[in-house]
């Protein structure tokens, strides 16, 4: 195993890209640097887009990759006793400095959808971002 360091090149994930709709080759910008010493274990959603940074040395970079593929829906298949803790909502509502102003809200929106899929809780929301979109007025048939 090798260090993921600047001259040897590194994996470059694109944050939040597992929820994106575009094809990976469209992404040249927005990549981040995964820098870590040999022996580090990194967990990534398999849908996170990433590339390999150019290796500027003659040394071949090596790593192990283990891919886990769930075969059943991953709904509450973990210790779910703290699902309703305020820290969960706070974590899922976190903004990051690399978000565009408009897209930041969409990031939260898509996190809510992901959390609903993982927990089966269709009422979960952060700042009503999904509720305010889905709770639209509809025409009612006259009585």
């Amino acid at each position, binding site marked *: 195993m090798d260090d993921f360091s*600047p001259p040897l090149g*590194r994996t*470059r994930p694109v944050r*939040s890209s597992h*929820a*994106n*709709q*575009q094809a990976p080759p*469209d*992404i*040249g*910008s*927005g*990549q*981040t*640097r995964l820098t870590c010493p040999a022996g580090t274990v990194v967990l990534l959603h398999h849908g996170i887009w990433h590339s390999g*940074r*150019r290796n*500027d040395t003659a040394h071949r970079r090596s790593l192990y990759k283990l891919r886990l593929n769930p075969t059943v829906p991953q709904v509450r298949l973990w210790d779910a006793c703290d699902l309703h803790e305020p820290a969960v909502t706070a974590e899922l509502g976190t903004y990051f*400095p*690399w*978000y*565009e*102003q*408009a*897209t930041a809200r*969409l*990031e939260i*929106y*898509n996190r809510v959808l992901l959390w609903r899929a993982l927990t089966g809780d269709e009422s979960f929301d952060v700042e009503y971002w999904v509720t305010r*979109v889905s709770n639209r007025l509809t025409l009612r048939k006259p009585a």
Partner: protein
Amino acid sequence: MRQQVLVLCLASSALDSDVVGWSRYDGTGRTRPTTGDSDEPPYSTGLAALQDGWRLFQASQLLPPQSGHEYDVSFPKHEFFFEKVEEGPHP
């Protein structure tokens, strides 16, 4: 004539909004920077790059989302290309 190119992705279409992504390329061949080479942006805003002598030569066109995709996230939308042009032969 050789180009140094700086790509800045900004938080909005305003040129003085914050940098959220960046990369640099060197057409002179003296250095070999590429995307993902630094943890901190070279400038805090697009305007700061202008003030340091970079010339803006392209800005992203603003396009509304396709119908049905209004709530999808995508790649950075506000990408600005800057250049510094150097005279002289290739080294």
